[in-house]
């Protein structure tokens, strides 16, 4: 329900402007910024779990990905070098339009994977606290803070690793 000083037309304007900027994959429309990523959700049926319900040996199986548009803010790479060689780390914040997830009939959760820039990022935390006009039913964005994970620990791409 729209507020007295924020009619539904204005809320629609805000959504429309955001779609024009960010892009709208569900309607196959490119945006001005148009940063794309693919969101993978784990398949609970296909992932093998141990007696505690944890994915056994870190071998999670993921469902097919869903292409989404987001505003991406990536930190610089951080390399930790030890006796096994360099280990790249990167934190990335993906800001999605919440309506895009509603259109895709999907909910982003902690533990989901996001494919972006030839890397896979696991969602570590989610923030849904951008309320348009202070209205809690006009929750506007989904901000996911993610971290880079190894391709060998997921079952999406076949990679050479130990």
């Amino acid at each position, binding site marked *: 329900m729209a507020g007295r000083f924020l009619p539904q037309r204005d809320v629609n304007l805000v959504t429309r*402007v955001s779609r024009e900027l*960010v892009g709208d994959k569900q309607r196959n429309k490119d945006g001005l910024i148009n940063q794309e990523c693919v969101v993978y959700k784990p398949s609970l049926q296909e992932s093998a779990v141990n007696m505690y319900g944890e994915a056994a040996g870190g071998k999670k199986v993921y469902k097919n990905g869903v292409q989404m548009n987001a*505003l991406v803010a990536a930190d610089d790479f951080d390399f930790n070098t030890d006796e096994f060689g360099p280990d790249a780390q990167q934190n990335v914040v993906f*800001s999605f*339009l*919440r309506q895009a997830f509603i259109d895709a009939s999907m909910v982003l959760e902690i533990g989901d994977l996001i494919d972006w820039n030839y890397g896979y990022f696991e969602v570590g935390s989610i923030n849904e606290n951008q309320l348009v006009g202070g209205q809690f039913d006009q929750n506007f*964005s989904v*901000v996911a803070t993610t971290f880079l994970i190894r391709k060998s620990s997921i079952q999406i791409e076949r990679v050479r690793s130990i």
Partner: protein
Amino acid sequence: MITDYSNAPFNNMLFKDINEVGKQWIKKYGLALCKELLGTIRSKYASLPIPNAETTLDGDTLRTEAATEKEALITELRETLEQTSRKALLEADKDEAEFLQEKLSKVPYPIYIG
């Protein structure tokens, strides 16, 4: 024939009856009005939320541009009308006559053989 304000027909003119210069002026003024309206609409919210950020709209810029363009077009129209006023036309005629007289005064007289 329209020579000045006194015989200009101040009734509702049809767009198709306006000459090309007038049509161009109307189109430019219409564009300025559209800019002003769009600027007013975009000025309602100086900034709009986008996911995890805000974007600013160019409403104020559009309104400023529209005001400048409207003023320039009104000035242009006023100058054009003044150029075609009765006084300006008479002055042009006067200048033309004076130049003609000056030119004729420099024509050599024919040799009179009596």
